[in-house]
């Protein structure tokens, strides 16, 4: 049998082709295995990195929640924003803030942010803003009586001395501020009484003029009752009291001290050097004695719990003319009688006791007391620069910030779309600024449109603040939970009472 020249048996051709195929398959297989292994590693690392990014996004969302909440507290809201059932939406994530009142002064905030597969919770404790004592001027918790012959005006120590400002422009000292939570009586029956500035009685109080006093400023009442915080004396055992007799001057150097009393006997002299915080049960300055508050090195704070007694022939003076550098805080029901002539630059704060300022006393700064009596001839020059000095205290203060560790089984902490996880529809959610917890508002105000005093009792969300020209009185009742809202609506709430 003859075969063609190039003929090869079929079996042998298949065998040689199969060898190449196997080699190729092995090569492809190895490459595929390497690729799969690399892809798995990359995917695992990418998952971790994406997880870290999602956690950071959630962290920033929670921080945004805390920030919005803080802003709300600044303007009288509760601090609560949304809820887990109805969170606020921000970008591709969502957030809510729970607010819990720890006590009258402190609010605990818990902000949760969820973004993609991450969840983070942050905690913050805020001390609510205090009253800016520097804004009150001459103020009393109870009714305030200004007797005949008294002069109250105001200036701004940051622009120069009182005398310079008055000499340059007498109208510039018409910045006095007189206020009370009750009535303010300005009595001019026994002599000319002058208030160059505003007189503001309490929300339910009135301005009572006896005779024809001079009042140059506004006389509309305060919208809110001013809450005066009590003075807290420091803990610890005080040093024994000290009586200083005439002779070499006594110098109390900078620092923090606590003693039972300081008694400056007749014709003695003492200097307190700032920065100084001196807590005493009592301070007594006898006739001819002088107590100098030297603020050239820093501020001085005197805390008194029992008595402040400055004789008419004694001197209580300050070296500087910046009223924000000297504060006399009086705790409890101490007796306060300042008969010295002054001048004295500083702020006297006695929220739980009565203060008597005698006829010759001249104060540059401010005085806030439960009950204030100004004898005829007393002169009070309110320093508006105290407004700035007390501005920090007026803002809410962050006391504590922390990251709250989530339990392993916390909802959303294991990934997944947060909207699906919480079962919420993103199109129905509001932005954080629109998600503050609603409050019941009890408001008396003068609208821009009518100019006639009007009352509003209802949810704040239903009230249009744009129409408010002046607030006469305002009260918020704190947060309302959903059941309350339903109940109020059912009772025909959301009322608007002209």
């Amino acid at each position: 049998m003859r075969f063609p020249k190039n003929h090869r048996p079929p079996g042998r051709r298949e065998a040689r082709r199969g060898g190449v195929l196997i080699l190729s398959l092995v090569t492809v297989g190895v490459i595929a295995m390497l690729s799969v292994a690399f892809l798995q590693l990359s995917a695992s690392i990418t998952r971790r990195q994406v997880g870290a990014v999602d956690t950071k996004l959630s962290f920033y969302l929670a921080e945004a929640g805390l920030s919005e909440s803080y802003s709300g507290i600044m303007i009288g809201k509760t601090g609560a924003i949304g809820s887990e059932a109805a969170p606020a939406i921000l970008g591709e994530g969502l957030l809510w803030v729970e607010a819990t009142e720890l006590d009258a002064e402190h609010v605990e905030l818990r902000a949760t942010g969820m973004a993609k597969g991450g969840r983070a919770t942050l905690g913050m404790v805020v001390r609510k803003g205090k009253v800016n004592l520097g804004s009150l001027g001459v103020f009393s918790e109870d009714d305030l009586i200004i007797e005949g012959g008294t002069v109250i005006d105001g200036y701004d120590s940051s622009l120069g001395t009182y005398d310079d400002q008055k000499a340059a422009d007498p109208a510039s000292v018409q910045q006095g501020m007189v206020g009370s939570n009750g009535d303010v009586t300005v009595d001019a029956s026994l002599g000319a009484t002058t208030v160059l500035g505003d007189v503001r009685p309490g929300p339910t109080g009135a301005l009572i003029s006896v005779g024809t006093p001079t009042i140059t400023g506004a006389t509309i009442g305060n919208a809110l009752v001013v809450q005066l915080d009590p003075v807290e004396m420091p803990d610890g055992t005080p040093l024994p009291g000290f009586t200083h007799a005439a002779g070499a001057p006594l110098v109390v150097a900078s620092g923090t001290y606590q003693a039972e009393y300081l008694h400056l006997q007749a014709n003695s002299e003492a200097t307190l050097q700032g920065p100084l915080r001196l807590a005493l049960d009592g301070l007594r300055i006898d006739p001819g004695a002088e107590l100098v508050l030297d603020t050239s090195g820093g501020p001085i704070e005197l805390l008194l719990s029992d008595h402040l007694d400055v004789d008419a022939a004694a001197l209580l003076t300050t070296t500087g003319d910046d009223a924000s550098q000297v504060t006399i805080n009086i705790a409890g029901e101490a007796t306060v009688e300042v008969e010295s002539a002054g001048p004295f630059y500083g702020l006297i704060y006695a929220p739980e006791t009565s203060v008597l300022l005698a006829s010759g006393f001249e104060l540059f700064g401010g005085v806030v007391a439960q009950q204030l009596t100004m004898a005829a001839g007393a002169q009070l020059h309110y320093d508006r620069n105290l407004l700035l000095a007390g501005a920090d205290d007026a803002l809410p203060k962050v006391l504590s910030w922390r990251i709250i560790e989530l339990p392993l089984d916390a909802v959303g902490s294991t990934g997944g779309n947060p909207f699906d996880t919480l079962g919420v529809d993103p199109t129905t959610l509001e932005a954080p600024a629109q998600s503050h917890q609603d409050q019941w508002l009890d408001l008396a105000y003068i609208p821009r449109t009518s100019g006639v005093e009007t009352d509003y009792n209802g949810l704040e969300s239903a009230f249009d603040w744009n129409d408010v020209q002046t607030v006469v009185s305002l009260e918020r009742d704190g947060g309302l939970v959903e059941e309350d809202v339903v109940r109020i609506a059912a009772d025909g709430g959301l009322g608007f009472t002209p």
Partner: protein
Amino acid sequence: MRPGPVRRARAGFTLIEALIALSLVAIVVVKITLVMSSASDASAKQSAAMTLEDQARRVLDQIAYAIMSADREALFPDPESPNYSTEVTYRISLGVDSGEVIWSDEEAIGLGVRGNQVVWRQNPGMPEERRVAWCNVVRPFMEGEIPNGADDNDNGLADEEGLSFTLLRNSVTIRLCLERPQKDGSTLTEPVETVVTVRN
């Protein structure tokens, strides 16, 4: 009938043919092996770099979250550029009780004794000290830095080590540099840096 030539033609490869074929196969196999080995090395190096970067980021975040919660007044030491510290001690807020902030026990984050570890310690220096190593591949010096008393890498610090803290007011700059030796004798280096603000 002449069957002889036909039998020779069907007998298979000649020796030369077989040798050529084997040589070609060997060349192809060697080439494939080289390519695959090179790909595998590149892949391993790449994944090692990713792992190191991931590790550096995680450790940096861990340090940053701890310092964020710290009390500024209790953050110690208080170095400002060009000085730096390789350890910070701090305490974190646990909340507020009766108006007073509750602070944690003292904690510290810094380089361990071996110099290549980031170590977190609770109650440092006390008998009840607890310590956890967060990482053990810290580079002796920051990338680009050699111990010559000069600022070689132009970051404002001279001879800074693989972990450094610089504080300016309420902000803490954290710099961390990790390194991991490779099979081929090379070294992977991953420098990371962040600035955090102390919240308390």
